[in-house]
C-alpha cells in the first residue's frame, strides 16, 4: 500500500515538474552598445534589442520577452561572466619611413601591449606587418615581414611568452589609409599586433 502511494506520488511529481523555461538575456557591450538576438521556436519568433531585455520559451512554445537588470544579472550570473576570457585586443606600432625602426611614440603602445599580454592566460599573438606605397611592391613585401619579425623579436626580448606567435607581412596591399602609389603615408607604415 505504502509502495503504491509512493509510486503515485513520484508519478505525480514527475507530471507536475516543469523545468524552468529556456531563457536569453541580452547584455550591453563595454561601450554600452547593444546588438540584437532573434529567438526562434517552432511556435514563434521574438527579437530582443535592449540592454538586459530577456526572452523565454513558454510551455506553449511561444517566446515571451521581459526585462532583467544589471544587478540581477550580476547576482545570478556573476561566476559565468567572471569566466569570460579577456576580449581580444589589437595594437598598432608605427615605423620610420623605409626602415624597421619604431617611431618614438610607439614605445608607449609597445609597453601597453606587453602589459596586456602578461595579464592573459595562454596568450595567442598574431603580428602583421604593413608598409606605405613608397618603393617597389616586392621590396615592401620584404620590408613588411621584416617589421613584423622585428616586433616579434622585440616581444620575445621583453619576456613575452605566448602560446603561439604567428608572423606575417602584407606589404603595401592592406593600407589603413588608401593612397596613390609612391605616397609617404606614416599611418600605413605599421605593424598590427592582435592579442587574444
Amino acid at each position, binding site marked *: 500500500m505504502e509502495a503504491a502511494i509512493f509510486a503515485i506520488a513520484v508519478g505525480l511529481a514527475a507530471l507536475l515538474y516543469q523545468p524552468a523555461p529556456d531563457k536569453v538575456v541580452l*547584455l550591453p557591450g563595454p561601450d554600452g552598445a547593444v546588438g540584437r538576438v532573434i529567438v526562434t521556436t517552432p511556435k514563434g519568433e521574438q527579437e530582443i534589442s535592449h540592454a538586459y531585455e530577456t526572452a523565454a520559451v513558454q510551455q506553449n512554445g511561444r517566446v515571451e520577452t521581459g526585462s532583467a537588470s544589471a544587478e540581477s544579472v550580476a547576482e545570478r550570473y556573476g561566476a559565468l561572466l567572471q569566466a569570460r576570457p579577456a576580449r581580444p585586443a589589437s595594437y598598432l606600432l608605427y615605423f620610420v619611413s623605409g626602415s624597421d625602426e619604431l617611431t618614438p611614440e610607439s614605445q608607449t603602445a609597445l609597453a601597453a601591449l606587453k602589459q596586456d599580454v602578461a595579464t592573459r592566460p595562454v596568450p595567442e599573438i598574431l603580428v602583421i606587418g604593413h608598409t606605405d606605397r613608397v618603393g617597389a611592391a616586392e621590396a615592401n613585401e620584404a620590408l613588411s615581414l621584416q617589421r613584423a619579425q622585428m616586433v616579434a623579436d622585440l616581444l620575445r626580448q621583453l619576456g613575452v611568452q605566448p602560446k603561439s606567435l604567428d608572423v606575417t607581412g602584407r606589404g603595401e596591399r592592406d593600407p589603413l589609409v588608401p593612397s596613390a602609389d609612391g605616397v609617404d603615408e606614416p599611418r600605413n607604415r605599421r605593424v598590427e599586433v592582435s592579442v587574444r
Partner: protein
Amino acid sequence: MRIRPGSWARTCLCGLALLLCQQALADIAGIGTIKTITGEVQVQRGAATLTPVPGFELQEQDVVRTGAASTVGIVMRDKTILSAGASSELRLDKFNFDNKTQTGAMQTTLRKGRLSAISGAIVKHSPEAVQFKTSTMTLGVRGTEFIIETEGGGS
C-alpha cells in the same frame, strides 16, 4: 650492408604518410582555445573523455562539460568569446572560419546549464551563418553579447 629491394619505396611511402598526417593535423588544428578553467572541466571528443588545461585546442563536435561550482572560458578562432557556468554542457556542433575573408559558420548547442557569449568576426561578416541552440529554441545573433540558460528538459 645490402639494401633490401623496396626499402626506398617504403621510406618514401612512410615520408608521404607522415606528410599527409601533418597536413591532416594542420587541417583539424583548433577551432578555439580554452583560456580559463575553474573546478572540473571535461571535453568529450568522440569516445574519448579528455581533461583540458588552459591552452587546450578545441575541435568541431567537441562537447565541453563543467562540474558543480566550475566554469570554463573559451576564445574561438573568429574571436567569439564563450564561457560556461556550473553543471553545463556545451556542444561545438559546427565551426569554420576563413581568416582572410573573416567569414565562416558556427553552430553551438547548450544542452544544459549557462552560457555567455560575445559574438566575433563571423557574426560581423555573415550573421546569418551563426546559430546558438538549446533543445527548445534557436538564436540568431546580430553583433552582441548575451547569456543563455537552460535546464535541458526540452518539451
